[in-house]
């Protein structure tokens, strides 16, 4: 049953450009894919090690700028630029991971926000490198051998491959000893340390992989929109990632994917019904409602209600009839 469902889903995703030929829908699918990579990236830190990074837009932006600058000024081709974007974002993740070793909870959040703030200011002010607020237009479309991946259909497959790669990396990581160390760290750090989990090592590792993945998302974004400006560091990107992970279900692999698709498609659907400000207002209220009524996220809730024996949240009791 599950295998059949998965096969159908894979077939649907692989053939999507054939039955959803409208470029507008394909655009939404591509954006959902890029956000799926970002949500998976944030989920590694937030969902598995329990550390909330509110500076994820920084890694996304570093990836976007690295890729754009290397292809524009040094005329690298897309693939090495992509690799460099991933590497540089990963290095930034290592830096933040090393820096904030001793910090947890709110303090970790503040370091990540501040890091994103500084990077964003640099992107605005270092005009010789980044062209300042005007941004970098004309980022080239990627090429694969003799083919240009300029069309939406081709780009869709590129993004789909990136999502699959991020999913597989997350899955392998989470299912391994390392993933169990992440969860142990999240659930009870002192206990984890006492049985020999090297907390520092694993936290830095999670930060590096997560940041590198966000860099991948950034590079894909830059070569898709063909334009990079300091707006890639906007806090709203980080907020979108957080909402996707929390709504989908943090600490699950399917959750961020569901969240990414839902929260890319939903604003587009609402665009006809309501102006952008109303939408953002609704986003804020939605986040509040989610925490109150669906604290574990959509995927865990659905899984629990389908598996027949719903696991109640700790402390909550079923009311007596």
């Amino acid at each position, binding site marked *: 049953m599950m295998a059949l469902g998965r096969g159908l889903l894979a077939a649907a995703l692989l053939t999507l450009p054939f039955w959803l030929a409208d470029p507008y829908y394909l655009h939404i699918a591509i954006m959902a894919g890029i956000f799926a990579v970002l949500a998976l990236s944030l989920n590694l830190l937030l969902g598995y090690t329990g550390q909330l990074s509110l500076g994820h837009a920084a890694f996304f932006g570093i990836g976007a700028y690295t890729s754009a600058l290397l292809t524009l000024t040094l005329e690298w081709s897309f693939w090495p630029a992509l690799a460099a974007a991933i590497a540089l974002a990963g290095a930034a993740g290592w830096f933040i991971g090393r820096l904030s070793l001793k910090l947890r909870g709110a303090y970790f959040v*503040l370091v990540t926000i*501040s890091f994103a*703030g*500084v990077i964003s*200011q*640099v992107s605005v002010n270092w005009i010789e490198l980044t062209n300042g607020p005007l941004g970098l237009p004309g980022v080239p479309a990627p090429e694969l051998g003799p083919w240009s991946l300029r069309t939406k259909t081709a780009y869709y497959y590129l993004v789909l491959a990136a999502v699959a790669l991020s999913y597989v990396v997350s899955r392998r990581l989470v299912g391994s000893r390392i993933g169990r160390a992440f969860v142990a760290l999240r659930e009870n750090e002192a206990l984890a340390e006492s049985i020999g989990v090297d907390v520092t090592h694993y936290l830095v590792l999670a930060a590096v992989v997560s940041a590198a993945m966000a860099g991948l998302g950034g590079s894909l974004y830059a070569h898709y929109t063909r334009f990079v400006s300091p707006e890639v560091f906007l806090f709203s990107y980080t907020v979108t990632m957080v909402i996707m992970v929390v709504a989908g279900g943090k600490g699950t692999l399917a959750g961020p994917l569901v969240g990414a698709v839902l929260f890319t498609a939903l604003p587009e659907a609402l665009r006809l019904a309501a102006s952008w400000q109303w939408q953002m*207002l609704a*986003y804020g209220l939605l*986040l509040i409602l989610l925490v109150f009524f669906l604290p574990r996220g959509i995927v865990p809730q659905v899984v629990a209600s389908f598996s027949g024996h719903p696991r109640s949240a700790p402390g909550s009791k079923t009311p007596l009839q």
Partner: protein
Amino acid sequence: METLLQHLVNGLVLGGTYALLGIGLTLIFGLMSVVNFAHGEFYTLGAYAAFAALALAGLPFVAALLAAIAAGALLGALCERALLRPLRGHSIDTIMLVMIGVWIAMQNGELLVWGGVAKSIPHPFPTAPLVMGPVAIAPLRIIVLVLAVGLIGSAWLLVHQTKLGRAMRATFQDRDTAALMGVSIGRVHAATFAFGSALAAAAGALLGPVFLAYPSMGDLASLKAFSVVILGGLGNLTGATIGGLLLGIAEELGAGYISSGYRDAVGFVIIIAVLLLRPSGLFARQERIG
């Protein structure tokens, strides 16, 4: 040397309002463990309340300040009652997510009500600067500094000299023991959040006329408030006051001597540096309130 003096004076004016922001947040963060990302939105609320009172209703400046304080306290109390009280005892991350939701909702609510165009807030003071030796300062800025210092003083009195303040300090030191001694934790939390929000609104009403009022002005205010709290140590009023003044002066010097584009980066660098080198804050003896 003359420009240095001028920068110091400007920094002091800025720093006074940062201190107000920081004191409000340090009480909320320290006492309730609420990472209040909506703090800056109360600052925005205060600025718009001042705009409504001064430009639309034509009230005097002090009445506008009081209106902003009342609006901040009211909405803060409402927020605590509706959102934070039901979640008391939940993890700090859960509550942080709710406050991020409040932040987004409030900011876009303000955008809907007031529109995205920055508004200049009229004030009744003469615009010609007073020149004192090498330093020129607008009368409005002097009034802002004086009022900010007055508000900081009254916050200090409230925490140190009143029964409510004693209950707040007791709750901060040991919530369970305080509850056993008859302190109503719920009421202390409600009062703390309302009071902290009122101070943020006051800061907005004071700094709004100096600069401009616009819907996203709270984002930077939140981050500045967090830098002040980190600089001063959690729950430390004196620390927040000195931290606010230091941040204001550091920003002004950074803008003057490095590059005005990096003015706001000063706060971020301070957050990172202090958290790394001295995570308990510059002025912390131990975590305490008062």
